């Protein structure tokens, strides 16, 4: 069953996407400098240099979270995946938002090479985007949050039960958006942008 699902273009896309997100999120975390640079090692992914977490727990967290999303991405339920950085008071300071759009009705097979080509540009763009981001205060923390289009029915699968509603604090005002990269390579549309709190709010 699992195997057959993965053979559909959506399954294929979802697998590529999950793998990519894992790498990209690690790169984001590296970029933000939450951990010392020594906590990461240089690796090649899709033939570009990326950073991978060395710490097994960190690696596991990213891996498990994103792989947990796989079935939902396949079903097209995940709208956005955000990497949120908080200050010590749990107020979000910066969000890296991956906005996903998978065309569920897409029928034919996907050229993974094309997909890789587009995804690669995210990684290279990400590695030079530090200037767009804000410096984090010490003692900040981060988490991965997924925004669903609809709530997965609890009890339908055990993966769904792993997900709980988030208690992340929200901004009072709509955030400021800084796009980093967009791609639209049928059947996958992926956009990465930054969200910052509105100026008035950040003063609070």
């Amino acid at each position, binding site marked *: 069953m699992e195997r057959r699902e993965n053979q559909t273009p959506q399954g294929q896309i979802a697998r590529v996407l999950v793998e990519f997100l894992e790498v990209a999120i690690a790169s984001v975390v590296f970029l933000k400098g939450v951990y010392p640079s020594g906590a990461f090692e240089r690796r090649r992914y899709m033939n570009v240099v990326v950073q991978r977490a060395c710490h097994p*727990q960190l690696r596991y967290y990213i891996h498990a979270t994103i792989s947990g999303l796989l079935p939902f991405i396949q079903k097209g339920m995940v709208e956005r995946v955000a990497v949120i950085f908080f200050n010590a008071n749990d107020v979000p300071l910066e969000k890296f938002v991956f906005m996903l759009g998978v065309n569920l009705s897409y029928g034919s097979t996907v050229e993974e090479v094309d997909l890789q080509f587009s995804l690669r540009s995210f990684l290279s763009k990400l590695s030079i985007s530090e200037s767009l981001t804000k410096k984090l205060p010490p003692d900040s923390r981060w988490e991965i949050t997924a925004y669903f289009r*609809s709530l997965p029915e609890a009890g339908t699968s055990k993966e769904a039960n792993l997900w709980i509603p988030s208690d992340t604090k929200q901004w009072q005002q709509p955030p*400021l958006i800084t796009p*980093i990269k967009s791609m639209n390579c049928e059947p996958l549309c992926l956009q990465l942008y930054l969200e910052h709190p509105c100026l008035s709010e950040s003063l609070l």
Partner: protein
Amino acid sequence: MSLDSFRSSSAPNSKRTLSFSNSASSIRSNDNNSANNKRKKMKTTATNQKTLGVAWGSNSSSSSRKPPFSDFGSYMTEKNRKLHNQFNAEASTSSFSASTSGKPIFAGVSIFVDGFTVPSSQELRGYMLKYGGRFENYFSRHRVTHIICTNLPDSKVKNLRAFSAGLPVVKPTWILDSVASNRLLTWVPYQLEQLPNNQPKLSAFFSLRNSKMSEDTFTNALCQVEPDIEDSSARVGNSKDRYSSDVAKVVEPSWQITIEADDVVSENTDAIMMEEQLTSVGVKCDEEDPVGGSNDAAKDVMNFQGELKPNNEEPSTSVTSLCSNDQNVNEIASSSSTRPSKQCHSTLSDPNFVENYFKSSRLHFIGTWRNRYRKRFPIPSTGFDNEISNINASTVSGNAVVIHVDMDCFFVSVVIRNHPELLDKPVAVCHSNNSKGTAEISSANYPARSYGIRAGMFVRDAKALCPHLVIFPYNFEAYEEVADQFYSILHRCCNKVQAVSCDEAFLDVTHSKVEDPELLASSIRKEIYETTGCTASAGIAGNMLMARIATRTAKPDGQYHITPERVEDHLSQLPINALPGVGHVLQEKLKTQNVHTCGQLMMISKVSLQKDYGMKTGEMLWNYSRGIDNRLVGDFQECKSIGADVNWGVRFKDMKDCEKFLTSLCKEVSLRLQSCGMQGRTFSLKIKKKRKDADEPAKFMGCGDCENLSHSVTIPLATDNVEVLQRIVKQLFGNFYIDVKEIRGIGMHVSRLESSETSKQGAEKYNLKSWFTSGSASMEKQKHPIGNGHDKQNMDGTSVLESSALQGSSVQMDNNIQDNQASADRISTPPPLCHLDAEVIRNLPPEVFSELNEIYGGKLVDYIAKGEGISESSSSLRNSLLEQEAINKKEELLDVEPIPQKNPLTKIEAMQNEAEGGEAVPDSGSGPSFNVTRNSSFEKDDLLPSSLSQVDGSVLRELPEDLKAVIVQQLPAHRRQEICSNVALVPPNENLQVALGVKNSENPGSTHVLNESLWAGNPPKWVEKFKISSCLILKKLAEMYYKSGLTSTLSSVLYQIISEFHQLNLAHQISDDSVNITCELLKQYIKVKIGKDIEEIYICFRLLKRFAAKSHFFLQVYNGVFPYLQEAVDDNYGGSLLITR
């Protein structure tokens, strides 16, 4: 994603925001702690760390013992040393595990990978490790032997030597291919294409020496084998030296040698040079049968060999007749009047190789047949066009009837029509009858096919399948005769015939009087059989596709009708390769999708077919699998290129051979062009080069496994001249830098064809000229058919003054006309000086320029020296003349009182005003509703209209992209020149100023179009709209759209504008309208892109913000759109876009 979903998800207590938290928070705190710890430790001490950065230092024991590096250089040496040690260690471990490591094919190779490569540098390093090569992390000209890269920045390409230190720059595929073939391949073919090939190759020098040497060895070999006939072997050598190997003369005394030499050859088959040397002799060797040869003589020689022993004293001609008697094919053999006298058929030995090659090529016969057909059965121009609309109607309504007539195994049945006894015997047509040969069967009759003999098979294989197969040579005269008979029958029976090939045609009988198409088909077939003695099959169906499929069923000698009801049945089981346009490649691709029949193909949606196979092919597959075919019978395609390819028997010994061959190829191509009445501008030379690792081809003298190289050049003037062709080809050939000995085939093609009648009249203005002649003919009463005069004036470089004088005196004018026409007739190939575009000439390379100058007897220099002045004055002159004529004509047409001739100046003035008035209309009209006045079309000296408003949008849309870009590019330049020349021409130009002023001022009426979608279509609608706009900035935007490579992203257009921004800034009054329309454009763009590509919008608005700081126009636009943008972003992303500059 909708607005709602986001809004709710951003609400504080939304349940839709989920976070993965099975242990996330604990990890978080752990990680934070450890991170903090690490940070602290890093600061205090550098010992005992697991982090990478410190690990580097602690591992390097040497560095801890020695003092720190004194400078960067010593650091690098140390680093390199360590990298080498690492590499060696890895290499030794990988070589110990012998099973994984390959043989050391890269021994002595040390690569340096530069930049991003497609197998990554690490993979390449792995290969190097595994196969005994070296990998350098840092470039050093002493250690590196090859630089590997896939792409080089421009600066490195320009300064290649500085970058590569003279080392070869090779693509990574070299390594992959070498690994794949398990030996070190030469890197030469893998050189980076970006590099200009400006180094002469040594091979050119070597080849001469090589040929000498191998000739010697050949002679020596012969001497060793048969010392007592060294005399004759010397003669063989001599004859080859002279390239005229009269085989009859050489062979007779030395036929013994040939047998001996045969052994030599087979012993040294890999000594290719040797073999080439031997071709003239090798003709007689059994192993090396020259088959599929370029002349009948090949057969003669083989027969000769068979009879050699008894008849070795006979001259070869008598042998021929003897053999042919024996073989009972005397008719064919006696038809050898056209047979070339030369006995050899490689480029090496036959000086008339090219001619003979095509004389005996079946494909050439088919290819050139169409021209003969065109001449014989010219398309009836009357009546045909009228019917096209009918055809359309009928195909739509679905009751069309198309008959496809195809002769049964044409090439065989024509040859054996006079041999009734062979009718049910297996017969094939082929160049050669040698049963061991590798000539390809070109056609086989049905009895032969039942043995499994197919076209394209080697004779030896066919003979193995069917030993009593009778093989005939081609008889081209007979083919021509039968094809002509065939077509005269078809043309008699039906007035809509589309010839497909010499033996195959479509008839559209929808509107013929015949009631039953089956009856008609059978009567046609009967008549064909009675007239030609050959059978034909017919398929009847509703369109060309189905008719052709029906013929498949009908064959041989039958007919079949697929009625619309039966189409589906018929298609469902039809294998996909039966569809036209489905070849091997497409078939293979479809097979991987598990599609074998049309029925299976029918199940795939059109969209996914188009996705997989491209728009056109996908649509074709979709249509064809359903039996839909919208082609019309009689739609003929103009040929797009004319050329000649030779890929059999091409072997060169040195450059001289090759040049000789190219010369004759040019002659052939030129003849073909002339016979089609065409001239071309783009010339491409294709070369088949033997692959480095390819063996001698299975087919004797064939091309074998080759790589195809090609170069092409476009010249400004179409030509069919042999000498020009030869020069171009020589130049093209020079671009290849190829060892002539590796060439296995050469082809030359001419494209961008123009009909020679029109192109003879000169440059692109010919259309106007023809228009003019007709125009002036209609104005015979007019005393000033000035249109013809202006050529002469321009040619002499007359100034404005002179022209005004001319206008006054009609007598002088008439003289000029006479002169002009006479001189125009005299000049045949080079166009009149005035037709030359000064701009082009100025940009020609010096050598071409001097050559052209010679052709024009030195006038060219003067012409160019006058430069700008002439071009401007002449164009203005022409304009004025044209305008005058336009006015005159209009007067005549409208029967207005003519302006007195005595007053030319006022007339010009009046006319200028009027012309400008007319011009201003389309120019200022960005609204499509503006009427294009008739007189505006008279203003120009060529067919380019004054603005896009006069261009039929539908026509423009159908044009190929590049052409479109050229046309659109052309327009503004053209217009600008026009305006300034007009200014220069008329001194009292107040009126003109007014006219120009009108143009620059804004027009109302661009607002009412705001509703329609500006981004629809390709190019998007706004481009056209802006093009014709009066606002310079808008025009610039449209122009930039074409410059930006038609990518249809606004950001690329805006990027283009940066470079020309200063031009835009030259203080123009900006109207609200142009601001409004730009705002609308941006709004629509936001609407299109916001959902999927916010990055694009972000880029655009950042650019706009930059522009806004400098330009009032863009500031207005930016401010106008910004609120809308934020609203859209908020709707889609729940935030506002932060735009920084």
